Every structure is written in structure tokens, then in C-alpha cells.
């Protein structure tokens, strides 16, 4: 029996070993690893072309029945592919026509697909629990769409902390409606508009070792949980190898025409692939995982009036990003009448912030500059 696993060298080793162990103990003697579905031709050379082959699009996927049963079912019935919804879980190597470059699909000759309905797909995840920080001020419609897509992307729940920066009533309502019935969501309100100092405030309040910074204007693709299941867990796990792991945006909706930025990527990858970035790339702080020590060190070096680490995070030397891109709806804020870019729009820095957790009732005064003493 044989299987193909799509993984890169930064994927969690323990989870990968677990998967391989479960396959070998089920009798799979040939396990081929590739970094991308674009490399399926390389895999084919090593596979028995006339025997079914299980396909793991990532190392986190687990099926609800033993993998050898999937193999045997396909072999017995002679299907070209078995799939759950549109996701191929097993295929006959000789029938692969080609990889649809840059997507995450394969094309087959004489496709004879069987849709499996009695097999469920679940995902295991790295151990470390993420924490997401989001801040918002006056863009309720963006916040709503951002939270909807964030929630849709999550297979497993974890703490989400929303800091409302001197919010409008509509923003407050969106945040509280979202938090209702979700014990993993905490909403905090700042009396002052702390702007991008919000991350600093949340860091001081919650003191996580690693965290995910997020803004209120970033819509995840519908397919996030298909291609990057448990992405926040994966992001944190990858921080063992990178300074920052973040989502990047597609460049179509940038608000400055003729930006000197190429469309991304120049060599398109499958949407389930990871990209390692070392050059100038458009990765913004819309959804980015960093360690607290990295954030604080860079904030100390940056000497920014908002006492935060903004650009240095973006330009960190070792970054990793999913090839799948998100929509930065914040680029549309001028179109949507939420700001006038010709006028000053960044508030004055705040010396002392008065924060109340609307979830627990706890109140604190926090000085942004105290972060620099960490």
C-alpha cells in the first residue's frame, strides 16, 4: 500500500511522524513526501502506478476509518479517485493527467470518482494554544466581515481578545454580538483610541509568549480551513523556525496605484503551499504571528511614538506565509467613506490607557511605555 503526503520541512515533526507511524503500522510500505502538489510527477516516479495511493494534502488530516480500508475499497472497485466533497483522498497514479498548476487540484484521465460519504475528515494540531489580538475603532462593517471569516476559518477554538479603541456604538455591538455565547472571546474597551498601540496594551494585559496580531479589516478566504486547517496552531508552531508567520494579501486592491510591488507570487504555487519570504514582500500586520520577545525587542529598537513594533515586524528577515492570499478590505476605506486619506487620521499617542474588560468587568490602567521595560 502507498501514500503521498504533502508537507514542507517546517511542518510539525511529531505530527508528521505520528501520521507516518499510523500508515506504516497499517501496512503502508511506500510513503512519498512532496512539498507541493506541483511535484506530483516526481511522486509518480516512486509510486506503483497501478495501485491506489492515499493522498494527504497536509500532515494534519486524519480519516475516521483506517487508511488501509480506504485503499482496499478503491482497489476492489477500480475507481480512479475517492473524494470527500471535492477533496481527493485517494487516487490511481497512472490516471493523473497533470497538476492544475497553482491551484490545489489534480486532473485525471478517465475520471471515475467515487464520493465517499461515510468517512469523516478531522485534523490534529500542534500543542501550543494560540491567542489572537484584534483591535477596532470605527469600521463596523469591516469588523463584522473580518470576524465572520475568522470564525469560519477556525476548526478548533482558542482565546480571541478584541480591544475596542474608543469604539463607535456599531463597532461595540458587532464585537459583543460576536462574543455572545463564545466563551473563548473576550471583549475589552479602551476609553482612549490607542490605535496601533492596542497590541502593546493587549500584550501587557495577557502576557502570552506568542500571539497573533490581527486588524479589523482582513477577510480570510472561504477555503482557509480546507487548505490550512488549524492555521493559528500552525502559525505558532512555525515560529520555531521564523520571526513572523503571517497571512499576506493579494495586491489587486491596494489603494495606491503603481505601487512598486509585483503580483504575488511570481512563481505561483498551489494554494495549500507555504512560501518562505526573504525579500521585500507585501505582508502586513493584518494577521501575523510573532513571539512576544521578538515583538518587544523590535518595539524597543523602533522607538515608535505609538510604542509598538509595526514596520519591523513586516520587514523581519525570516517570514513564512501561506500561498493562499487574503483580502485586505481596509484598502477600500476611502471608497467606503470611512476615512479621508488627505487628512491626518492617526490619533495622538496615549500616555495612559484606561481599559475595561466588557467580559469580566476587570479594569486596568496601562502605560504603553511600560512594555519597553520588559
Amino acid at each position: 500500500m502507498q501514500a503521498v503526503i504533502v508537507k514542507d520541512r517546517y511542518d510539525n515533526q511529531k505530527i508528521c511522524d505520528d501520521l507516518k507511524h499510523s500508515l506504516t503500522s497499517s501496512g503502508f510500505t511506500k510513503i512519498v513526501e512532496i512539498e507541493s502538489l506541483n511535484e506530483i510527477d516526481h511522486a509518480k516516479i516512486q509510486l506503483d502506478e497501478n495501485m491506489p495511493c492515499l493522498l494527504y494534502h497536509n500532515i494534519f488530516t486524519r480519516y475516521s476509518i483506517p487508511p488501509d480500508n480506504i485503499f482496499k475499497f478503491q482497489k476492489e472497485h477500480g475507481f480512479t479517485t475517492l473524494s470527500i466533497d471535492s477533496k481527493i483522498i485517494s487516487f490511481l497514479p497512472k490516471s493523473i493527467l497533470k497538476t492544475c498548476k497553482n491551484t490545489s487540484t489534480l486532473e485525471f484521465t478517465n475520471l471515475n470518482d467515487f464520493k465517499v460519504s461515510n468517512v469523516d475528515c478531522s485534523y490534529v494540531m500542534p500543542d501550543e494554544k494560540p491567542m489572537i489580538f484584534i483591535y477596532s475603532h470605527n469600521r463596523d462593517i469591516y469588523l463584522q466581515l473580518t470576524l465572520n471569516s475568522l470564525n469560519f476559518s477556525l476548526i478548533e477554538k482558542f482565546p480571541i481578545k478584541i480591544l475596542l479603541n474608543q469604539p463607535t456604538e456599531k463597532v461595540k455591538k458587532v464585537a459583543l454580538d460576536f462574543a455572545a455565547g463564545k466563551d473563548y472571546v473576550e471583549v475589552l474597551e479602551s476609553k482612549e483610541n490607542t490605535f496601533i498601540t492596542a497590541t502593546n496594551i493587549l500584550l501587557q494585559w495577557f502576557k502570552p509568549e506568542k500571539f497573533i496580531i490581527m486588524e479589523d479589516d482582513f477577510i480570510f478566504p472561504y477555503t482557509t480551513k480546507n487548505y490550512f486547517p488549524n492555521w493559528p496552531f500552525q502559525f505558532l508552531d512555525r515560529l520555531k523556525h521564523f520571526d513572523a508567520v503571517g497571512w499576506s494579501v493579494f495586491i489587486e486592491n491596494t489603494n495606491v496605484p503603481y505601487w512598486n510591488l509585483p503580483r504575488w507570487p511570481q512563481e505561483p504555487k498551489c494554494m495549500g503551499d507555504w512560501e518562505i519570504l526573504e525579500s521585500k514582500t507585501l505582508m502586513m500586520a493584518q494577521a501575523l504571528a510573532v513571539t512576544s520577545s521578538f515583538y518587544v525587542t523590535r518595539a524597543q529598537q523602533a522607538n515608535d511614538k505609538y510604542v509598538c513594533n509595526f514596520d519591523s515586524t513586516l520587514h523581519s528577515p525570516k517570514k513564512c506565509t501561506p500561498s493562499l492570499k487574503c483580502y485586505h478590505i481596509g484598502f477600500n476605506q476611502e471608497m467606503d467613506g470611512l476615512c479621508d486619506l488627505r487628512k491626518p487620521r492617526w490619533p495622538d499617542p496615549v500616555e495612559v490607557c484606561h481599559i475595561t474588560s466588557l467580559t469580566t468587568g476587570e479594569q486596568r490602567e496601562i502605560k504603553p511605555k511600560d512594555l519597553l521595560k520588559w
Partner: protein
Amino acid sequence: MQALIVRDRFDNAAIANDLKQELSSICSNIVEIESLNDLEKAKILLDGNEPCLYYPNVFLRHVNVPLRSILQFHKENMCFSVLVSRNNLVHPNIEPLSFIPSKVFKANRTNNTLFFLPIDSFNVTGINFTYKKPDEKPILFLYTHNKSEYLKLTLNALHFSMLDTFQIKILLNAPTAEVRDVALAFANNKQYVEVLEITPNSIFSAINLALQYFDRPSKFILMEDDFILPSSVRTYFPNWAFQFMDRLNHFDMVCWGWSSENCPTYFNASRQMESCMTDWVIDYKKDYNIGGHCLAINTDFYIRCGKKHNSIEPVNLYHVPFDEHMQANAKKVCVPSLKGYHIGFNQEMDGYRRRTVDPNHSKTYTVKSLTTNVEKKLNIEDLK
């Protein structure tokens, strides 16, 4: 003196000729390329050490400074690789007014701008520019039912993209109160916007009814309520709606494409990265990600597509062709390389229910203009 124009052969000939005529009075060498990716070919034909006027498209016109003065100034200040218009520091247009060919290059295929060698640009302020447009006035039909947030974002972006106004007809399909509010607020004080209400919900048949209500215009733009145009549209594709109508003289359809990133996995959408964002893609192979979110089409072709597939569901219910039918029948399709955002793909995330086909879909509807109060009773089988 010399000039470089980026245009393809389907750009409006009268406007292109008008530009060339204007330039010919001062430029003895006018070079045309289809894409900025052809810059190196252009440089062979240009004098590498002479200033060259730059037109990223044929519609751009500088209105308050003689072109000769721009070139003359640049010639006297050859230390600058480029002259750049910097009227607006927030939205700088960093494309040059003129450049020294030997000192610029194109960084890669997908970038849409010139790079300067070395970076020694001179910022010019006070030069205003405008964009010409083809003559034919577009008419755009946009239908909507219950996705008020999407409608609002769609209309905002549509409005932002417009340098010149044209007719927009918003068709409210048995709308929710929020949708009606969004549409009426948008139409307020805009004479070119008309809001119509259809009862009952005609769903896709709205376009059929609009064609009948407005006496079958020969061409139109079909738009859905969940498609956000990028803010850079008006720079890269100025007066895009006029250009779309004009290009229908050469194509069966002219459409906005959408980014593959946010579509569901079952779409098998491909990523198209090889073009500059300012280019047009001539989609003979029909392998671009396009749909019925925003496209210009000839009415005859549209109706013909509907009739051809009228025996199959759901065309036989709604009496309109769907995007796949239009694509299947179109011999030639043209698409801006720049893509929009189909927020409609997110409807499940945002709690909107997916539509299901109603086998008892009505044939007759009341269409009432909330702007003029003119009411018509129409039958979708009457579109001939």
C-alpha cells in the same frame, strides 16, 4: 522628441489617433507597445538618451501644461531619469510624465510600473490630467435581494471607479428593508441612478425584466451585488465601463475577472499571474476566472445564449443565460488583468443562505421605478 504609448489593438482607434495627432506636432518618434512588459522592445526603437513622454494608456491627457514644455524642461535637466507628477502626496501617481529610456527598466513581468535607474526623479506639481472616453454611454443593470452589506460595498466601489457618470439601474428583487435603504441612499442626489423594485423576487430573471423595461438597449453591463472593484480601477482602466462597451465591437463579452483566492475549492480556479495589472487579457481560451459578476455584453448575443440553452434547467425557469452558457458560446472574451473581489463567495461565512432553484418560479412580475414611479407588468417569456 519622442513618446511611448501603452495600448493594445482593441483600444478605441479614434482616441488613439487623436492622441497620436496631438503628439505628432512635437514628437517625431511615437512608439506603441501592448504591455509594459514590452518595454525592452520599445527601448530599441527609442533614443535611449532623450526624454520620452509616457502614456500608460491612450486615454490620458495632460490638460494645463504644453507637452513641449514637459519635454523641454526634462531636456534641460537630464540629470533626472524621470519627471513624476506629484499632485497628491497621499495617492501619488508615481508613473512618469517623461523618462530617459536608458535609465528605466521593468523589474518583473507582473509589476505594473517602471523602475528608475538610478532613483533620481523630479517631482512635478501642478500638472493636471484627465481621461478621454469612448462615445457610447453604458447602461448598467445591478440586481440585488437581501445582501445589504455586500450591496453597500459593491456600490461604493462602483461609484469610486467612475470618472464619468453613466446610467445605473438598481433592480431590487423583493428586497429586504436594509437593501432598499442602501440602494435609495446611494441613489440620493445621483441623477444617473435609478432604483426599481421587482415583485415577487425574480432572482436571475431581473436582467430579462430590465432589458424589457428599458426597451432592449443594444449593449449593457450586467452586475451582481457582491463584486467589489479595486480602488485602482480608475487609474489602470479609466472610464472602464465606456471601454467595456467600446470593446464589445471586437468581443462577445468584456468582463472583470476575480481572484481565485476566495472561491470555494470546487471551482478549480487557476491563478493568472503573468500580466501587468494594467494589461488587457484576450481570453480566447476561456480559461480566465470570470463569471457573471460584472460583464458587458451585446443584448443579441445574450438573448441568443438564453434561447440556445432554454431547454435545460435553470435557464428554462429564469429565461436568462448563465455565465457558463455565455462563456461557452462566446468566441472572444476580453478581461482586464486587474481583478475584482467576489465577496459573494463568502456568503456562507457571512450567514447568507445559498439560493436553491424554485421550480415554481413565476413568469410574470411587476417592475416599478422608485425614481419615476413608472410601473410595468412584464412576462419573462416576452423577451425576444
